[in-house]
């Protein structure tokens, strides 16, 4: 078991290194470098620097060294938490992402929580009462949820929320709090703004999860151990929850890997439509503006979150699946 964990950790670190190399390559991909962009920037405002000054700056930033050395200089700073300066915002990248990261995670976790609490019971019901009226309704609603594009639903909900419920829609804060320091009033304002985006983001995931849970559970319900459990004389609900549902949950542990990067980025399109100050739109902006340190940091973050997510789902699976824990395979 220890060997299994160690191997996972080793693989995870190797993958992280590979991701950092890839990220660096992406940062370096556009022609020219930061100084070229800086000179272009100065030129647009009418001022300029000499070629000697530019060389001196390149030397200061280490841009005249071989690419490999540059990579190690960059990664050395990244490891210390210095992700460089965003060219677009003229502030350190960590500051730019900072607040947005927490807000994104708040919205994403709310959406995830909503997804699981709605989808799992409905999925279980759908499987246990297969082909019942309730199952058909859940199936229909599920397919509708899958078919409706998120941004469209966001627009519709915004309209109805504003028109009939008088909600302040869009963004995560009302105008008067947006630039304020944190206070209870601001937190309450945030709490009022979170449900709408959470619902929009949860919808497609919920629909999908209902289908997956239903299919998984239908497979498990046919297995002989369910009959064994029933023949013991324990209640039906308890049988279903303890045995087949438990087994049907295993694939969810594996799906956490895919959920993790999403928690950080949020959905770009929905965030744009709803005007959410999350990381998603920031990534889009930074790519459009070729703000490479910012874009690189976000890409690196997403990559590493995927690796961490995979590691966590591996460990989780090992924790809930005794066969994997004790024999190292399924």
């Amino acid at each position, binding site marked *: 078991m220890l060997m299994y964990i160690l191997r996972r950790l080793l693989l995870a670190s190797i993958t992280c290194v590979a991701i950092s190399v890839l990220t660096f390559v992406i940062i370096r991909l556009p022609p020219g470098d930061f100084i070229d962009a800086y000179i272009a920037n100065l030129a647009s405002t009418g001022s300029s620097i000499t070629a000697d000054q530019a060389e001196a700056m390149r030397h200061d930033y280490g841009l005249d060294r071989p690419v490999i050395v540059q990579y190690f200089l960059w990664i050395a700073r990244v490891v210390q938490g210095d992700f460089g300066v965003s060219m677009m915002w003229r502030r350190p990248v960590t500051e730019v992402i900072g607040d947005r990261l927490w807000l994104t995670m708040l919205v994403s976790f709310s959406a995830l929580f909503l997804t699981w609490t709605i989808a799992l019971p409905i999925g279980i019901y759908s499987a246990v009462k*297969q082909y019942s009226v309730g199952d058909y309704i859940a199936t229909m609603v599920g397919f509708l949820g899958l078919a409706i594009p998120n941004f469209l639903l966001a627009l519709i909900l915004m309209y109805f929320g504003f028109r009939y419920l008088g909600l302040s829609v869009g963004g995560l804060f009302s105008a008067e709090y947006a630039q304020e320091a944190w206070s209870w009033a601001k937190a309450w304002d945030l709490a009022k703004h979170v449900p709408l985006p959470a619902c929009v983001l949860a919808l497609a995931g919920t629909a999908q999860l209902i289908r997956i849970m239903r299919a998984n559970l239908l497979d498990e319900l046919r*297995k*002989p*151990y369910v*009959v*064994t*459990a*029933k*023949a*013991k*004389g*324990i*209640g*039906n609900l308890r049988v279903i929850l*303890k*045995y087949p549902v*438990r*087994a049907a949950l295993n694939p969810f542990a594996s799906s956490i890997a895919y959920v993790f990067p999403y928690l950080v980025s949020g959905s770009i399109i929905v965030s744009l439509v709803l005007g959410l100050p999350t990381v998603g739109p920031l990534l889009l902006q930074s790519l459009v503006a070729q703000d490479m340190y910012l874009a690189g940091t976000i890409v690196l973050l997403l990559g590493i979150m995927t690796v961490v997510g995979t590691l966590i789902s591996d460990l989780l699976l090992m924790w*809930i*699946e*005794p*066969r994997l824990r*004790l*024999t190292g395979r399924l």
Partner: protein
Amino acid sequence: MADRPLLSVRELAVEFRADTGTVRALDSVSLDLRPGRVLGVVGESGCGKSVTARAILRILDRNGAIVAGKILLDPGTTAEVDLTALNPESQAMRGVRGARVGLIFQEPMSALSMQYTVGNQLIEAIRAHNDPGKSVARQRAIELLRDAGIPRPETRVDAYPFQLSGGLRQRVGIALALAGDPDILIADEPTTALDVTTQAQILTLLRRLQRDKHIALMLITHDMGVIAQMADDMAVMYLGRVVEYAPVREVFHSPRHPYTRALLRSVPDLRATPRQRLATIGGAVPQPNARPSGCPFHPRCPEVILGRCDVAPPAPVPPGEAGASCFLLEDAV
């Protein structure tokens, strides 16, 4: 056939709803389970042996339903209950499962959950009825494993099923079936998935437990050898009907039904001349949704009376008596 039966199935009919229409899986099945006796139920795959077991425990799949007949527990006493009248989810029915009727499964690999320890699953069964508390239940679980012939039960109780061999798993299955201290046991092909040596050990164990506890055992199998070794009475089933019902000795010496005769002929015989072809029954079991008219066996029957067997089915074996469901016998009377 001494002793009052503990459980009597009377003219039981079960139907399954399918896309192609309803399929009759059991048709007028009657049998008796008596204390201390073993009833062997034989027949080809799909003849309704397992459906009978599940119907008795009221754990048929959702698309299956009992459409006629009775399942009487303690018939003829003041405590007589018709299980078909109970709600399958009711407390009364749950009290029957495990505590009155235990079930032993065919597939020791898949019949146990791989996610809980042997002890967890066994203790759950013990505590389902007359909960003695956790620590007592654990002690009892260890005793049950020991009774089922599992070496080192104190450590095995904490093992997961995938850590045990097939034979040990089937012993766990037997311990599980006995956890509620039932007086009736249904063993659904308990040895089919095991190798021959293990098979013999499991059968010996079952026989010993059944005798010691004076249990009424219903042994479902397709192996005539197992029946000969284990059973007192036997029911031969074909396409959802009991075609012959009699003490084992009678059946082996003078089988009444052409199907039983054909089954007995198809058992390999050690004294046969080398390379002699094994007798087979011509044709195959018809699809359940394409039941032949009349006697379901008539298309494969070597002694078929055309114009008679294909028109209406013969009368079922009279409940509680030895006999066969065949026109040849009706004519002989």
